[in-house]
């Protein structure tokens, strides 16, 4: 019941956007082929929970400037339900040996391209 009340509250944290942390290292993202592989792995596996509308994986800046959201993977789903399923399914799973942490991410921030939250 506590959970249900929590879910009914306005501003409850469930969103359509899922953020995976502790997933990828900057080194893996620097190599084009590795990067493509990672994107493909994400699309394939994360698409099993629902329709993905967007996948964003920030890459390191070639000039060495810090990239917002580096090391994170952002998955936007078509609805909150899919994102919720994905969060349950992905949280704690291993990707390339790293244990994935999946959290909801602000839809507004995501749509504004703000990956630093």
């Amino acid at each position, binding site marked *: 019941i506590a959970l*249900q009340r929590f879910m009914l509250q306005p501003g*409850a944290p469930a969103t359509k956007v899922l953020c995976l942390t502790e997933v990828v290292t900057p080194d893996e993202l620097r190599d*084009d082929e590795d990067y*493509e592989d990672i994107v493909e792995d994400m699309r394939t596996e994360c698409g099993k929970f629902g329709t993905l509308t967007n996948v964003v994986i920030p890459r390191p800046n070639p000039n060495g400037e810090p990239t917002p959201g580096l090391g994170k993977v952002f998955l936007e789903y078509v609805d909150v*339900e899919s994102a919720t399923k994905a969060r349950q399914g992905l949280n704690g799973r*291993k990707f390339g040996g790293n244990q994935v942490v999946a959290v909801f991410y602000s839809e507004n921030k995501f749509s504004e391209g703000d990956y630093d939250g």
Partner: protein
Amino acid sequence: SGTGGRKRKSRWADDEPKPVIQLPDFMKDFTGGIEFDPEIQALNSRLLEISRKLQSGMLLDDGPEGARSPSPEPIYDNMGVRINTREYRAREKLNRERQEIISQIIKKNPAFKPPADYRPPKLHK
């Protein structure tokens, strides 16, 4: 690159059983496991989505011009202001679905505490 039949193992580990957090027995009694029922979860998330839509105050609309079904006859209040605007009808539609979902959740989980503005459907005999 990335295609062309190149066989490659996904970086995702096989769906290994997640470390299941064993709930103490008294907790099991408390939740009854019902909150993890996928049907109820689906209803809950739809309910959440509707609540968010209604609360966001964003313009509710049925879709683009032309793709909509014909509007009903306008109804005006005694000030001559139209009552059943498209926005109003969209909001009513969501409200009805919301009430319906809450009824379904209650049917499955009598312990569910409905929101304060929920009105149970009238029982017809």
